[in-house]
């Protein structure tokens, strides 16, 4: 299993992501955003969290035009897997590789805490090790995590099982920290090879740090 982790100026989760996937046995390559190619042998491209280009204009808006994003789009178009975490999710929606957009949190504050998530669909590589309605405990850390999608597109997300996760409390009751439509925390594309979520599974790999539920999520990518 080979994982390529994309690094923009301002990315700050690339080494956490490297740690997480190495722990699961993958070999990692960190790819600087000026590179216009991604190793064809890469099984998964991860767009890691952070503040690419200082979140100028809109979160993810500038990163989208980096040379590496053409390579990411090509990787996705040939069926390669892509995962965007936090700022990576914002980059993927700005790139139109994922539907919807991420707005400023409803309460306008940056939120950094552990939050529970409930699995909405598992008919995909990312969630397949979990069951529907399973509850996981994963950190969130974002200012612009308020997922928006129009009603019609939302319906097709549900019809195609593209909604991955909802924010919830520890008992699995919906609990919405940031105003996201339907408390949606993560989605995938219609082909189910591009995934994005605001929470950070790569920060939930050690019980001593509060949770290792991230393992159950990330190991879905391993054959």
């Amino acid at each position, binding site marked *: 299993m080979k994982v390529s982790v994309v690094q923009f100026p301002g990315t700050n989760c690339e080494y956490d992501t490297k740690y997480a996937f190495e722990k699961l046995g993958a070999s990692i390559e960190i790819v600087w955003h000026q590179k216009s190619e991604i190793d064809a042998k890469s099984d998964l491209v991860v767009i890691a969290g952070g503040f690419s280009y200082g979140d100028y204009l809109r979160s993810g*808006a500038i990163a989208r*035009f980096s040379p590496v994003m053409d390579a990411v789009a090509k990787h996705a178009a040939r069926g390669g897997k892509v995962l965007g975490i936090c700022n990576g999710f914002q980059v993927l929606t*700005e790139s139109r590789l994922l539907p*919807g*957009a991420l707005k*400023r*949190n*409803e309460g*306008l504050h940056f939120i950094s805490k552990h939050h529970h998530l409930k699995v909405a669909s598992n008919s995909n590589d990312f969630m397949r090790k979990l069951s529907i309605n399973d509850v996981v405990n994963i950190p969130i850390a974002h200012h612009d995590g308020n997922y928006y999608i129009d009603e019609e597109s939302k319906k097709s997300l549900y019809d195609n099982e593209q909604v991955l996760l909802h924010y919830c409390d520890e008992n699995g009751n919906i609990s919405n920290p940031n*105003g996201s439509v339907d408390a949606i925390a993560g989605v995938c594309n219609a082909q189910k090879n591009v995934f994005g979520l605001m929470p950070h599974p790569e920060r939930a790999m050690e019980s001593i740090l509060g949770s290792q539920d991230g393992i159950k999520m990330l190991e879905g990518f391993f054959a």
Partner: protein
Amino acid sequence: MKAIVNVSLKAGVLDSQGKAVKHALDSLKFGSVKDVRVGKQIVLELDSKDAASAKEEVAQMCEALLANTVIEEYTIEIIS
């Protein structure tokens, strides 16, 4: 010539900042405020041959980068 681009959330997309500002104006007793929308203004200095071509080019910039048309709308004003 100059282009002034105003970008704001589309009508129907909840504007949390606008809501917070309205709430603050309410508490300052500005009772006439019915709604507040907060947007951003981008001012471009252009070297274009005429206003029409400038506007067309700026519209392309808005679609490509300056606005996220999934959630935002924009207006363009050209000042020669």
